[in-house]
Structure formats: structure tokens, C-alpha cells
């Protein structure tokens, strides 16, 4: 009788452990998906802000064609990128081109004083920060997920249900170096 109770209790405990661990893994995996989507949301927001910014700057510094074109080209390249690597490269270009654009405003006091420009600059700076944080959060989540599926005994469950390791988002070599700012 006692043996039976012990067995039943053990089975229930192991069952509970399996359910909780499995659900935990699923929720972590979904959080990774969500974190990845969050990066895209922020990138899209940046694409949407850029045309407004270029229009505003044109009103004050139309002859700075080169800088303006660089921003537009980089943006279009980012939107049309088909591989993550291409996209990462384009994002880098956008960041660099925007920096030169904002550096331009120093030479145009009227532009700098423009309310709309100041707002767009704040929005874009904020978006840059959010992109960086979204990547950081993605990596943090991947770190927790990978650690969990590699640790014993959760790794047995993870193997059985094919929870695979995820890759970190890594800044490639170009973006690790200093961004080139052209004036």
C-alpha cells in the first residue's frame, strides 16, 4: 500500500516537472520569436521616419545632395535586403549616413532651430536606442534559452522535443569598427 502511494507520488512529481519544464521552454522560445519581431518593428519605424527627415532637411539645405542621397540609398537598401547579412550592412550604412546628416545641422542654424527637425532627431535617436536594446534583449533571451536547454536534466526533454539552440545576433566586423562619418 505504502509502496503504491510512493510510486503514485513519484509519477505525479515527475509528470509535473515535465509539464512545467516543457511549458517553460515553449514560453522562452516564443519570447525569442517576439524579441526578434521587436527588432523588426523598430527597424521599420526608422524606415518610416527617414523620408520625413530628408524632406525637412531639404527645405533648409537642398544643395547637400550627397548626404541626403546617402541616407535615402541606405534606407532603400535596408528595406530591400534579402539576407540578414545584407540587412545588417544596410543598417550600418543608415546609422552612419544619419550621423553625417545630423552633423550637417550644425552648419545650418535655421535647420537646427526647426521644431520639426528637432522632433525627428529625437525620434530617430530614440529609435536607434530601441534597436540596440531590442538586440540586447534578443541576445539575453537566447542566452537564457540556450543555457536552459543545455543544462541537466532539462536537456533530455529539450532533445526529445527538438528544442534547438538559437544563434546570437552578432554585429559583424564592419559595425564593430568605428562608423565612417562623411561630411
Amino acid at each position, binding site marked *: 500500500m505504502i509502496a503504491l502511494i510512493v510510486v503514485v507520488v513519484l509519477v505525479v512529481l515527475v509528470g509535473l516537472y515535465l509539464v512545467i519544464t516543457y511549458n517553460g521552454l515553449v514560453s522562452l522560445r516564443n519570447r525569442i520569436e517576439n524579441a526578434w519581431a521587436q527588432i523588426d518593428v523598430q527597424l521599420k519605424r526608422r524606415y518610416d521616419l527617414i523620408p520625413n527627415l530628408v524632406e525637412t532637411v531639404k527645405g533648409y539645405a537642398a544643395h547637400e545632395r550627397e548626404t541626403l542621397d546617402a541616407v535615402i540609398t541606405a534606407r532603400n537598401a535596408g528595406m530591400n535586403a534579402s539576407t540578414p547579412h545584407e540587412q545588417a550592412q544596410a543598417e550600418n550604412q543608415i546609422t552612419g549616413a544619419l550621423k553625417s546628416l545630423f552633423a550637417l545641422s550644425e552648419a545650418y542654424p535655421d535647420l537646427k532651430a526647426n521644431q520639426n527637425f528637432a522632433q525627428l532627431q529625437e525620434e530617430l535617436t530614440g529609435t536607434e536606442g530601441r534597436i540596440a*536594446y531590442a538586440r540586447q534583449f534578443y541576445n539575453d533571451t537566447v542566452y537564457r534559452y540556450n543555457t536552459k536547454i543545455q543544462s541537466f536534466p532539462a536537456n533530455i526533454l529539450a532533445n526529445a522535443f527538438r528544442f534547438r539552440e538559437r544563434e546570437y545576433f552578432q554585429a559583424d566586423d564592419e559595425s564593430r569598427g568605428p562608423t565612417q562619418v562623411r561630411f
Partner: protein
Amino acid sequence: MLALAAELPVYDQVTANKRRSWLLVAGFALFVVAVAVAFSYLIQAGPAGVAIALVVAIALNVGAYWKSDAVALRLSRARPAPQEEFARYHNLVEGLCIASGLPKPRLYVIDDPAPNAFATGRNPRNAAVAVTTGLLEKMNRMELEGVLAHELSHIKNYDILVSTLAVTMVGMVAILADLGIRLLWWGGGRRSHSDFDRDRGGNGGPAAILSIVGFVLLLLSPLIARLMQLAVSRQRETLADVSGVEMTRYPPGLISALEKLRDDSTVVHAHSRATAHLWIEEPAAQTPDEGRLSRVNRLFQTHPPIEERIALLREM
């Protein structure tokens, strides 16, 4: 990945912190009940009085759980911060929320030239951050981000629950103690005299001791409540500094913000003793050139000295 390696101890700390939070809340609740019992015993309300006091205490606790953030915000004269007017503030908080996986809290501003900030609420879904206009003016982007990350860490570590409950419970105890002492002074004396006389006569010894204990408890309760408020707050400030930096991965931002807070000698106008432990820096005057009460205030510091906090961050 270096920053991540350093993350694990802090995770543990957050778990331990949460556990301590619940213990403290339970301790607070017990304490409030004890004060309520002492109160009703002393004004001779009998078992019915104890029951009423308990019901009131529980109702107040539940009310505190739901409404304490509103109380703290009202006490500090905070008003909602519109997105258009405070774009930078909103943008920084949104970024940090993405970094930490928190929902965006409600944002408030306080019209006050002294730089300071606090967070309140009961859980991350129902949280609010308030900053003074002075903070927004005096801090640059990185510094402001450091301060906001500190505040969001309070939300993430569930410090806000404990500290906002502390606001209302400290207030509650203070009111009960005040009322009890006044009642004893004026009307309650009627009971005490006859009772004491009879107690001395013989069989009611424990009752006399109980009323003395109750009276002492009432007298000391504001001080005890105050000490509990301190226990809540000091080490949590340091933890929030550390986990805030973990969010931004940029210690110099918060370091330089703390240095500015240290060098700034303006004092928040609408601060109240009840909310002191909420702020990122002590809102009351601390040094002689900040105000005359600085000595008294230093006795009841809710925060570790800013120098120590800076030194700790420098080591990161």
C-alpha cells in the same frame, strides 16, 4: 557576452529580493494588526472593537495595494507627462522597457527644479515613474537614461510594491497611534483609571500589563514603522543601481547622474516623509547648506550615501 556572465548573481539577488519583499509585507501587515489590537484594547472596545479594527486594517491594506501608487503620486504633485511634450523621456523609457522586457509604465512629471525621480505601483503591469522637471533639464541623455534604468529596476525587482505599501502603512500606523494617544489623553482615561485600580487589587494583573504594553506599542509605533521603511529601502537602492546598469550596459551614465545629484543642493519642494524612500536621491535637505533640518534628516536616511553608490558602480 561579458556583461551576461556577470548577470547571474544579480538574478539570484532579485529572487532573494522578491522573497524578502513578501516577508516584509507580511511583517508590516502583522505589525499593523498588532497596533490595531493595542488601539482597540486601550480605548476599551472589546472583542468587537478588535474585530472592527482588524477589518479596517485589512480593508486599508487591500486599498493600499490598489491605490497606494495614486497616493504617492498625489503627495508629490505629479501630473501625467504627455508624449509630445516629453518625447525624450518617453523614448528613453520605451528603449529601456524593450531592453528589460517590461511593459511601459505610466509616466509622470513633477514641476520642481530639484532633480529627482521615483517609481511606484504594485507590479510591472501597474507601475508609474515620476521625474521632476529639474531632472529632465539638468541631465543629458545618457545620465537621464541611467536614472530611468534605476527606476525601472525598482519596478522589475518588485521594490515598488513594498515601498508603496510602506507609504500607506506608515501613514496608517501614524494615524492610529496619534488617535489612540489622544483618546487616552482625553476620554479613554475613564477606563484606564478604574481598570488600573481594580487590576492592582489582584486578579487582573495580566490586563494591566497588557494595557501598558499596548500603550508603549502605540507610543513607539511611528518609530518602528519608520525603521521598517528604512529596512525596505537602503539595500534596494544599491541593487537598483546595479541592475539599472545591467539594463543600459553603460555605468558612466548613472555614475555621472549620481555625481550631478550629489553636487546639486536644491531640495524637492513637495516631498513628504512618507514618500522619502521612493526617490532616487533623498528628497530632504542632507547638508547644512541644503537646509536647517539636515542633521535630523540624516538620522533617518532612507538611502545609502551617494559616494558609496558611485564607488560601487565604478567597480563594475
